[in-house]
């Protein structure tokens, strides 16, 4: 995390809306991808990502150490997305809204692969999706994941491993990416 972001957080905490806008701009990819990875539905992910930033804005004053902001934001995004799943079970449906308007053969294959992965992610448990997102979107190591999820490192390791094995199995069945 760079000094600019730390300064932005400090300013936003004092009520500077431009600073908060810059934070949203800098972290929107992480937050949206976290929500999308867990919910696997574009509009739900958008709502959950927006909700994450609103919650972050409301409780920014409670953040003690600015350097822990990315992990703190990831935690909010995870909890918000999990709560979203509990509130409405729409994520079970395979998202078909995402557009893959490509014309070339390669692009079509890429789009198909993306859909296969989306479908495979949908078949993982919520807990497995969360560890996959933390690892792949935030690049967290096992220790950080364990700390954020408040679970032992062994559990993180096991969840991640089983999630990958399941994905390998599912993607193999789809015959998309490994063929």
């Amino acid at each position, binding site marked *: 995390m760079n000094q600019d972001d730390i300064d932005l957080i400090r300013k936003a905490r004092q009520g500077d*809306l431009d600073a*908060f*806008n810059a934070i*949203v*701009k800098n972290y*929107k*990819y992480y937050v*949206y*991808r976290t929500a*999308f*990875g867990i919910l696997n539905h*574009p509009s739900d992910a*958008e709502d959950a*990502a*927006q909700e994450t*930033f*609103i919650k972050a*804005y*409301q409780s920014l004053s409670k953040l003690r150490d600015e350097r822990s902001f990315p992990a703190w934001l990831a935690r909010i995004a995870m909890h918000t997305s999990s709560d979203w799943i509990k509130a409405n079970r729409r994520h079970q449906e395979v998202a078909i809204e995402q557009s893959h308007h490509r014309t070339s053969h390669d692009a079509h294959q890429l789009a198909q*692969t*993306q859909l296969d*992965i*989306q479908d495979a992610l949908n078949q993982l448990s919520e807990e497995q999706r969360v560890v*996959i*997102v933390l*690892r*792949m*979107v935030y690049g967290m*190591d*096992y220790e950080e994941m364990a700390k954020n999820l408040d679970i032992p490192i062994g559990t993180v*390791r*096991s969840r*991640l*491993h089983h999630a*990958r*094995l399941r*994905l*390998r199995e599912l*993607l193999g069945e789809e015959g998309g*990416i*490994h063929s």
Partner: protein
Amino acid sequence: MSCPIDQEVLSDYVDHQLAPNEWEHIHAHLQTCSACREIVLELQSVNEDLANYFQTVAVPFAFENEVMQRVIAMRQTKHIHHLSVIFYIVVGIGFGGLIALWFSPWGLPIRVLFRFLLPLFQVLNMLSVFVSHGWFIALALYSIGFMIASFVGLQWLLRTLKSEVTI
């Protein structure tokens, strides 16, 4: 699989979550064990596909604008709530003060002053009798004007708040 290596260790290897000596040990093992090598390659492939997948997930258009609109709206609501609280506190203090003046010993000087001013009020009352109903008409016109001004002012305030929210 007959290989004694725990599969979870292969995941740790792919994620670079092993101590350097353990990593070297597994790395050397992979040179000789084709079964483990195959698993590692598949796990790496899954990782690569996931990384590509998440890279292509695009944030919806105007996402930050929508977030900021919600933040601004939330701030405005909070300000209005604070102003309402202040208003009720001031009204409460005002009424409380009046009641205190009326009933408490500290209000005695005011009550005395009021008694002195009473003849003046009586003169004004006589004046109202003198001008007949004109006094009431003036008061009614003033009240209506005041209400219209308040309503227009309130509408203007709401319009300003709305336009600030939608910027």
